[in-house]
């Protein structure tokens, strides 16, 4: 039978590409320009100012610290969770168990952060239960601290990394595991020598996405961390909506973007190395 040439419908990508260039790429280029704009013309003065203003660098460090800790904790606890989902649950319940874990995250950060306020606040559920047990008012003092923000973001990161790690684990060829088991490999060495190396790309994707999303999040640091010790995202918003200092806002945005690109480097390198090997 003669093969019918399907043609080369490359033009169909153009509408999406056009939109992405106009609404995503061009604003980034614009921000680079804005961040280099000062009253004396083009210079890096905005960046110099940023790094010599302690409340700005403090906010940057808090953003990195918050996202870093949340990413670290969730990247560790997602291993046993993904392992449990991939290998310890009967196949027919696997998807249901996974959905149980990820379903609440289809709703916004705002609502989930707010619901944590109800639990953590000084007259919240934990405080009320404790004071009921103790018999006198108890002040918990967790709400509006970095610990509360970390809690909120860690749960999100745990869901995300477990999801990507589970995907990577279930993609591992089952025969490989069975063969090594029947040749006498112990559970731990199967896990260490086969599962860990093959699941690492999925884990890297999850941890990178977690960090990227957490470092730029605004809702959780505001609702759970409070406004006294702001992160970069909070300052960006108050600059844009408050003082209208647009070059300054653009500079903060560029610094956040630089952090994100730096954080994505390990994942990018790992993918490139894997591609070269295959």
């Amino acid at each position, binding site marked *: 039978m003669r093969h*019918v040439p*399907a*043609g080369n*419908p490359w033009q*169909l*990508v153009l509408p999406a*590409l056009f*939109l*992405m*260039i106009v*609404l*995503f790429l*061009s*604003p980034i280029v*614009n*921000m680079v320009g*804005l961040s280099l704009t000062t009253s004396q013309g083009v210079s890096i003065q905005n960046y110099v100012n940023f790094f010599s203003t302690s409340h700005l660098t403090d906010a940057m460090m808090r953003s990195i610290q918050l996202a870093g800790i949340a990413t670290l904790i969730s990247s560790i606890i997602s291993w*046993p*969770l993904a392992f*449990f989902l991939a*290998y*310890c649950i009967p196949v027919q319940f696997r*998807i249901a168990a996974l*959905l149980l*874990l990820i*379903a*609440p995250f*289809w*709703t*916004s950060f*705002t*609502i*989930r952060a*707010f*619901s944590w306020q*109800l*639990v953590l606040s000084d*007259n*919240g*559920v934990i405080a*009320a239960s404790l004071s009921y047990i103790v018999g006198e008012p108890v002040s918990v003092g967790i709400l509006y601290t970095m610990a509360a923000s970390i809690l909120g973001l860690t*749960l999100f990161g745990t*869901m995300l990394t477990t999801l990507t790690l589970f995907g990577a684990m279930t993609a591992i060829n089952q025969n490989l595991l*069975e063969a090594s*088991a029947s040749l006498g490999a112990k559970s731990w060495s*199967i896990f260490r020598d086969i599962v860990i190396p093959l699941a690492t790309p999925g884990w890297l994707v999850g941890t*990178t*996405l977690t960090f*990227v*999303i957490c470092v*730029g999040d605004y*809702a959780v640091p*505001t*609702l759970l961390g409070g406004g006294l010790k702001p992160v970069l*995202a909070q300052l*960006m*918003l108050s600059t844009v909506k408050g003082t209208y200092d647009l070059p300054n806002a653009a500079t903060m*945005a560029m610094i*956040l973007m630089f952090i*994100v690109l730096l954080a994505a480097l390990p994942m990018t390198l790992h993918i490139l190395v894997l591609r070269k090997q295959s």
Partner: protein
Amino acid sequence: MTIFGLGYATRLGLNFFFSAVVLCIYAPIIVMIIFSFNSGRYQTLPFREFTTDWYARMLQDQNFIDGLGNSLIIASSVSISATILGFLAAYSFQKAEFPAKPIALGLLLAPLAFPLILVGIGMRLQFTSLGVKPGLWLVAMGQTIYVLPLAILNLRVGIANVSSSLEDAAISLGASRIRTLVEIIAPACRSTIIATLLITFTFAFDEFIIAYFLTNFEITLPIKIWTTLVTGFDPTVNAVGSGVFIFSVTLGLLAQILLFKRQPGKFS
């Protein structure tokens, strides 16, 4: 299951750990839903009396109705445009060859690995310097950028599952490319398309930060929730939050069921 001969204690520990994490995720949301039926003005235990007053109040609040209306309109237009654009792009990536294809794919998927706040602030600064006032139509455009990668990823799988002999047959019988797309490919991956519409709708409906950056005084539902939260507490938020939570999770679950049900090459 048979590969990892785990001891009883390990297995129990993993079960316990999984349950603990699930409990941590659900507990606050359950608390919120319980409080939404609590007659007390203050959000504290003990539980007073059962009431549906907060839900009634929610429906009487004009700001809420406006925000909900705006969010429904924006999320619908976002999900439809992202699904159409994503479908065309996914088809092109699947079937066409062009220079810089990986770069184009990378650009289209980039917002997925990018803090949303940068999409919001970038568009805000860009359109302000062009003299364009922020507004709800800009919100819709920004959110389209945000959900487009999800649409492309979903639809690529759906389109790859359609047997290419179907489309070859249509084209060899003289159908145009567009007609083939509309009458052959789209019906063949119908459940993926519906799932994509649902998922992109949910994400746009719940999106807050892009909307917040691209508006001055207009409200969407997440903005309404936000302003209520930061400007003095109102227990109606419990009812709104519970409603939005149930709504979003239902849509998300429907989408997942559709995606799990899709079968390669099935023509229905």
